């Protein structure tokens, strides 16, 4: 009796470690008190713990900005690269490493301004990774300049008389790209919902894009207050194939819409709402092709394949001495 109980446990111990939250926590984040990035970090660490993801198989890739400090606060592999270039770096990492879980943390300047070209193309490549857009509608790290997602009229150091143009809509933009496969939105101040969204994004095969409305109390202290204080201004998207309406969520968010994530037309309409912030999964298409699955071939790079194929290529271009040729090498 005793034996039969302890054996599986023994196996469990030797097979995998039990990861605790703190196993994923690196240094104390240097973000400002109340910064929405902290909530995103907490949700991601919880996800890793709940999924028991081995530290060495996780790579967090970021650009430059407050939000791009994210990888430093994870005790995993991280790549804190160049402003705007997180996505192409992440693509290169993922290309031939299906064993790695790749996450991208990027700011609204990082993703929607300097890295905008990469953003659109990353959506189309649809490589298997989870992309979190930390959208505080402002440049944090460089101290309060307008971002492409800043709403018209927003006063900043570069727009002291108010931003001139309407902000760019990251959801609508993403939903306009061919081969898009997963688009969702969350707000940093609804942690349970944020967690759910990140978790569903993580389980999606393909590029999952989450715009996270993120507060920057340092530079835009009251910017999202109207949405925070009035739950009526959030629109909760629910669906049995998306985030189901749990009693807790229903109580917190009176405005709800049952939205089928396979319906891209309605997704585009929802994305374009201006009076309310929709939260939930706007679009999901499991059938979209992942670039890494179709580019190249299944051939493994081994000394043997290189030798064989290189010799075959050299043959194509070789001029044989006449004697050898005449002897049938041709």
């Amino acid at each position, binding site marked *: 009796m005793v034996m039969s109980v302890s054996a599986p446990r023994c196996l469990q111990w030797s097979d995998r470690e039990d990861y605790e939250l703190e196993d994923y926590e690196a240094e104390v984040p240097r973000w400002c008190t109340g910064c929405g990035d902290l909530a995103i970090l907490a949700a991601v660490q919880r996800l890793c713990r709940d999924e028991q993801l081995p530290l060495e198989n996780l790579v967090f890739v970021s650009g430059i900005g407050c939000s791009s400090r994210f990888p430093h606060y994870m005790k995993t592999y991280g790549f804190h690269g160049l402003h705007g270039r997180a996505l*192409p770096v992440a693509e290169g990492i993922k290309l031939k490493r299906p*064993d790695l879980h790749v996450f991208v943390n990027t700011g609204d300047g990082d993703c929607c301004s300097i890295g905008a070209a990469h953003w659109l193309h990353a959506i189309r490549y649809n490589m298997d990774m989870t992309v979190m857009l930390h959208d505080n509608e402002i440049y944090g790290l460089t101290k309060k300049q307008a971002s492409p997602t800043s709403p018209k009229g927003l006063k900043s150091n570069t727009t002291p008389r108010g931003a001139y143009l309407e902000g760019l809509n990251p959801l609508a933009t993403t939903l306009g790209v061919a081969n898009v496969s997963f688009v969702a939105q969350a707000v940093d101040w609804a942690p349970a919902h944020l967690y759910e969204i990140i978790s569903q994004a993580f389980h999606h095969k393909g590029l999952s894009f989450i715009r996270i409305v993120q507060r920057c109390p340092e530079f835009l202290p009251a910017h999202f207050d109207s949405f925070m204080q009035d739950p009526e201004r959030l629109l909760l998207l629910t669906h049995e194939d998306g985030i189901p309406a749990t009693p807790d969520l229903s109580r917190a968010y009176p405005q709800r819409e049952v939205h089928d994530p396979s319906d891209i037309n309605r997704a585009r309409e929802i994305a374009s709402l201006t009076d309310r912030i929709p939260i939930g999964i706007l679009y999901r298409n499991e059938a979209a092709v992942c670039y890494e699955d179709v580019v190249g071939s299944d051939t493994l790079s081994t000394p043997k394949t290189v030798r064989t194929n290189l010799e075959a290529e050299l043959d194509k271009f070789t001029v044989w001495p006449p004697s050898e040729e005449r002897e049938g090498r041709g």
Partner: protein
Amino acid sequence: MNEGGKHKTTARKKSAVELAEHVVEIVSDSGEGAQKCGQSFASIAARMGNGIWTVEIIPAEIQPPARSVEGASGNRIRLGSGAITNGGDAADLVVAFNEHVLLGRLRDGELKPGCIILLESKWRTDRDPEISTLYATICNELVEGGYRVYEIPMETECLRLVTDARRGKNMFVLGLLCRIYSLDRALALEQVALTFAKKGESVIAPNQRLLEAGWGWAEENLDIRFSVPATPATEPRLVVNGNTALGLGVMASGMEVCAMYPITPATSASHYLSEVFQNVGGVVHQAEDEIAACAFAIGASYAGKCAVTITSGPGYSLKQEGIGLAVMAEIPLVVVNVQRGGPATGQPTKVEQGDLLSACFGSHGDAPKVVMAVSDIEDCFYSVITARKIAEMFNVVVVLLSDASLGTAQQPFPRPDFHEDWLAPPVDQSPVPEGVTPYDWNPKTGLARRFIPGQPNGMHTLTGLAHDSRSRIAYDPAVNQEGIRRRSLKLAALQKTLKTPPLFGDEKGELLVIGWGSTKGAIEEAVQRVRADGYSVSALHLKFLQPMASGIKEVLQGFERVMTVETNWCDDLEDELIDEENRRYSNLAWMLRARCLVDIDCWGEVKGQPIKPGRIEKAIRQRLR
């Protein structure tokens, strides 16, 4: 006028004039197949054992207007009895499908005064009087100018065999040339079969007939006949252009990722790789731009897959920030720059060596990287293998400089024998031992290991911010200083392994000519010519530009004067505005002056053409007493 006609009766009897070498050009409007004709001609000669060097003549536009001076498209073939190391001087014989493309070559100074011109004669009787008059005028002028013009009814002759002469003329001309240069007829027919192998017998047969017709026509009607005796090859040789050689090198080096964005004149390397790379498990990723291509390659390399990014000048400029990141984070990366004319869009299809300084010193801050240059076609192949090894051994960026002339030039070289040590060793994914840090720098060499994602205990965040040996952000100024020192030391460590390049010529003398990259063959040929006249001139060619091998300063000290010859700009002291204090030097001259504290002169040309040995010879003679 029509010399061919005049000499009709004597043509057959004429025996071949023996030559040590000849430069032949075939030019047409683009789409008329002059390039295929030239390449086939070169291949036949190479198979007979002749030394060859071919240069593509490429118009700047895809479909330039027909019969235009700018539209010349085709091939230049220099063939010789011995090895040929460059495209040579002006052409000895040119075949032109119309008189305008011919004028283009004349204007560019590519034709030897009095050279032989084989010209399509159909324009003389063109229905458009403007065309026929112009043709007649130009023909007259050429004859008066001393050129030996042979008018040849190419189209008429082809129409006897095919309905669309535009598509057959090139093989007719190939036949003409093979006969003129006494090439092996059987080999020529075989070459046609090879050229059209993919298209099948129904295409091969008519083209072989066209070749025979050209041969026959020359035999009947032309009094010119040469032979460039060949030493039959005893070993298998590879005939490819520099970009294909690069692609083969990428395969042979065990790389797995090539990230690129299309740009002339680098694209053909990626075209070739796109065909074959996947056979060895490789991927060619056409990124959305060069910034992404560079970042993608960095990501792949970080994840343990050897990567290269191939580009040309404008793309190289865009990659600069990414290159700095790879330097800072010590990620191995090979960047190939097939240089073209700059700045900005410059001259996309033309050669220039203007990117040496930006390769060495580009990217903001102190970003030490290795810079190598390829000097011939064979070098294109082997240098990629060396570059990959250096990049992985030292965790550095290696910039490999080629250029438009090497990219499209062909020169046979011994078929490589594959060695397994060309490949990257398998990535170490074993757990990282306790206490070992990601930038576990060797205090003497600056060499560091690196941890690959997936490796247990190696977790760290790589950063483009200044960092310490544990990859923690450097808030302490001393840490930044130390990081820069370590990265710098890696170049010194590599430099210790480099051998002083060998001198061409004697160790002491009046003048030393230094070059790098594609000018090697032309410089050495020019030096050889003046040496033959008794001058004590030597040449030195650098493969490693950064770091530079030791011993170079000592080499310079053996000479009274030193100059560089480069295909990039340098101010001329003869210019009224220019003096010692404001003169801007050629790229390598700047670097050598700074490193060796020697007063180094320079000469160069930026005409978009490979510098000819004759031009170099002239520049050298001007500097000799």
